């Protein structure tokens, strides 16, 4: 057995020796990690939806009723010339009617009999690369002959962006507080572990143990607590996420809001948790050891 294997084994033994303290520490770390995880997931989902909305949303330019097909083609060419425009989709009157039916889904009965009334105008959906260009593009689209109205659902996008900004700051604030709390808890547990091993540490000192030899088992103890808490939190949050995903994504309760599929988010959560667990464990142990282990 090498010295490092021995010290890792010692760290593991310490965990068992401090059984109830270890379990209560891990439970608290799990709770803070879960709260943190929920905020991260909300943040990730809001960002994902902002990104999707930015791509999907575009300006809708309505075409005057008596515009001919040739004129429509000409207008399309002019739209293509505008800087920052990424895609142009032409929506005929019939397609506009189908789109309205789609949007109302189960309640589309009130559109019955309106098929031939021509009430929905033809339009162009003008998509763009950057949200910042929207005002400029809108001004140029309005100048094109045959366009009588340009609609831009700015409020939805701006609301989502401002939510994402708030979520960002909130996550940063809550995350920092939870991180400090977790480090404090681990550090406190290790402090107690050091205290209960006081005699052992003193004996080790007398027989010539270097500080690194004394410290390593405690660091290992902290790291194991952090990583095990991370894995437990990961399992719990995965179960909740999959459950919520299935329950909400299949209903229309959230409107346009879509959850990120679990398959594309699980490794991010796992990676974040394990790194965070290691950081909390090692840093938490190290700060309490520094103070308590003077030669």
């Amino acid at each position, binding site marked *: 057995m090498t010295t490092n294997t021995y010290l890792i084994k010692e760290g593991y033994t310490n965990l068992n020796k401090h059984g109830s303290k270890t379990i209560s520490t891990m439970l608290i770390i799990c709770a803070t990690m879960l709260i943190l995880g929920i905020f991260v997931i909300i943040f990730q989902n809001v960002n994902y939806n902002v990104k999707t909305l930015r791509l999907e949303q575009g300006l809708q330019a309505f075409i005057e009723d008596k515009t001919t097909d040739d004129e429509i083609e000409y207008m399309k060419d002019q739209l293509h010339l505008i800087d920052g425009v990424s895609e142009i989709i032409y929506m005929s009157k019939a397609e506009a009617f189908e789109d309205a039916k789609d949007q109302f889904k189960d309640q589309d009965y009130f559109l019955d009999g309106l098929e031939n009334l021509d009430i929905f105008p033809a339009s162009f959906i003008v998509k763009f690369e950057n949200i910042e260009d929207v005002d400029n593009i809108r001004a140029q689209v309005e100048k094109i002959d045959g366009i009588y109205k340009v609609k831009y659902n700015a409020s939805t996008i701006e609301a989502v962006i401002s939510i994402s900004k708030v979520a960002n700051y909130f996550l940063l604030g809550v995350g920092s507080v939870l991180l400090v709390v977790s480090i404090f808890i681990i550090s406190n547990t290790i402090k107690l572990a050091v205290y209960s091993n006081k005699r052992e540490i003193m*004996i080790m*000192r007398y*027989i010539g143990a270097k500080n690194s030899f004394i410290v390593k088992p405690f660091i290992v103890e902290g790291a194991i607590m952090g990583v095990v808490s991370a894995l437990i939190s990961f399992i719990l949050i995965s179960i909740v996420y999959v459950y919520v995903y299935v329950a909400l994504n299949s209903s229309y309760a959230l409107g346009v809001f879509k959850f990120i599929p679990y398959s594309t988010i699980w490794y991010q959560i796992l990676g974040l948790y394990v790194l965070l667990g290691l950081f909390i464990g090692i840093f938490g142990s190290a700060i309490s050891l520094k103070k308590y282990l003077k030669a």
Partner: protein
Amino acid sequence: MIEFINLVKKYDHGVTAIDNVNLKIDKGEFAFLVGPSGSGKSTFLRLLIKEEEPTSGKIIVDGKDITRLKKKDIPFLRRKIGFVFQDFRLLYDRTVEENIVLALRVIEAPEKEIKAQLKSVLQMVGLVGKEKFFPNQLSGGEQQRVALARALATKPPIIIADEPTGNLDPITAEEIFKTLLEINSRGTTILVVTHAKDIVDSLNKRVIALDHGKVIKDEARGVY
């Protein structure tokens, strides 16, 4: 092996624990350090393992002035000195074997050496067959032997025993001293702090007496 040169240790509250002591203990020597409580014996030992710093003077251990030793080198000084305490200072949740092996793990000894040394010191202190016992399952004398085995495991050139028989009956105490003499006969320098007058008188070894921090007697073949 050990030398104190003009050594003074004064505490902040004004007490002088070691008062200009000049002393030399040669390699392979067996010496007793005696004196009443408060004479400076404990300070003497604490200075030797650099648990305390002298106010002035030098302490030479194995040719090196330890007063100039850096903090990171203190463990290496302590590895040269095997310490045996009155209260044994064993780990009671570990077996005899684990207590002894700990000293070898600390110096990062290879596994082969650990096995060989464990066998050797168990034989030396007469504890073969008790490797898997916990300290609480042993008598006081046997526990002190475990402590002795742990001190010997890393083959230190110096053994310091602080009241090693203070908690033991006279017959067991005699056995411990026999073992210490045997270890000394193999070339290990031994310094024993003791109040065991009978044993000191019977062994006819060097006796250094301290009182109020001064050496008041230093006889090559002395009595208590």
